[in-house]
């Protein structure tokens, strides 16, 4: 989804479709008219090849671990939502002012909560999130141990005899008879 998913999507898709049709049909002035309307609503991003490529790289690295709240399955680095552009600009400015990554992460979570972090911190409310996979693994191993132990205790007669099955080839390589 593009700019301002739930905010603007009510009007934008139709407008985009009409525009596409107008452009495809070669209506003169269609694209010229559209440009100011689009750029009025869309903040334009500072040229990324700007003065300091190192700063830009740090900004993108940090933006890649922050969630865009408008398009929640995208990072701030990926998203073209207006808010993501603004937040990239915020990161850029704060890095330029000498803030470090931890301070900027803190700035973001004070405003948007832990949800903005793709890697949430470990605390009481996220313990299950972090430990859940381990608990599931432990549970599965425990279950396996119980089953194996129970089988070990069973009378051997309870199992089917472990004879090779001569009647059927058990692999495609087995010689046909």
């Amino acid at each position, binding site marked *: 989804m593009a700019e301002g998913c739930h905010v603007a999507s009510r009007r934008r898709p139709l407008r985009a479709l009409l525009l596409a049709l107008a452009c495809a049909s070669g209506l003169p002035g269609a694209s010229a008219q559209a440009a100011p309307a689009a750029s009025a609503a869309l903040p334009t991003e500072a040229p990324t090849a700007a003065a300091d490529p190192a700063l830009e790289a740090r900004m993108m690295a940090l933006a890649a671990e922050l969630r865009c709240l408008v398009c929640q399955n995208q990072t701030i680095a990926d998203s073209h939502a207006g808010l993501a552009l603004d937040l990239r600009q915020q990161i850029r400015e704060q890095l330029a002012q000498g803030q470090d990554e931890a301070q900027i992460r803190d700035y973001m979570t004070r405003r*948007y909560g832990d949800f903005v972090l793709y890697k949430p911190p470990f605390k009481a409310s996220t313990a299950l999130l972090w430990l859940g996979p381990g608990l599931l693994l432990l549970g599965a191993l425990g279950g396996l141990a119980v089953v194996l132990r129970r089988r070990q205790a069973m009378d051997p007669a309870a199992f089917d005899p472990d004879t090779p099955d001569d009647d059927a080839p058990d692999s495609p390589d087995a010689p046909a008879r």
Partner: protein
Amino acid sequence: MKRFLVPLGLFLVLVGFLAVGLRLDPREVPSPLIDQPAPAFRAATLARPEAMLQRDDLLGRVWLLNVWASWCGACRDEHPVLLDFARRADVPVYGLNYKDQRADGLAWLQQFGNPYADSLFDPQGRIGIDYGVYGVPETFVIDRAGVVRYKHIGPLTPAVLRDTIEPLLRQLHG
């Protein structure tokens, strides 16, 4: 028989989780600002570029901050509800005109009516970022001490006002 009960039980647990999950709205991200002081701002108002409004001007009373923009479709749906609320409520509603053009915002109020005691003009969305705004419209309830008490994301509805915001306002007025 018993061997079927375990998978059935697991299945029911899974159904339970999914049923709860369906009711959750992933867009409603709980705001970390609840019970925190409202972020400070000092900005020009929409109607008068030379008039500055700041957070501390509003200390000492309960007020609502409603984030809106002329480009926001859902704001138009919300607007009659807000107009009606502003007419009968005894708390002021301040607007935050978010990432908008001044002329567009003023024309919008002209056309649809103005429920706001005043609107802050935030063309760059800086105040919006400080308030963690990500989906316009949003509404904050701020108490006498300048603490954010509630945040509603998306358009206000009569039900939200009746069941949540108005009881909270009564409580804040003590």
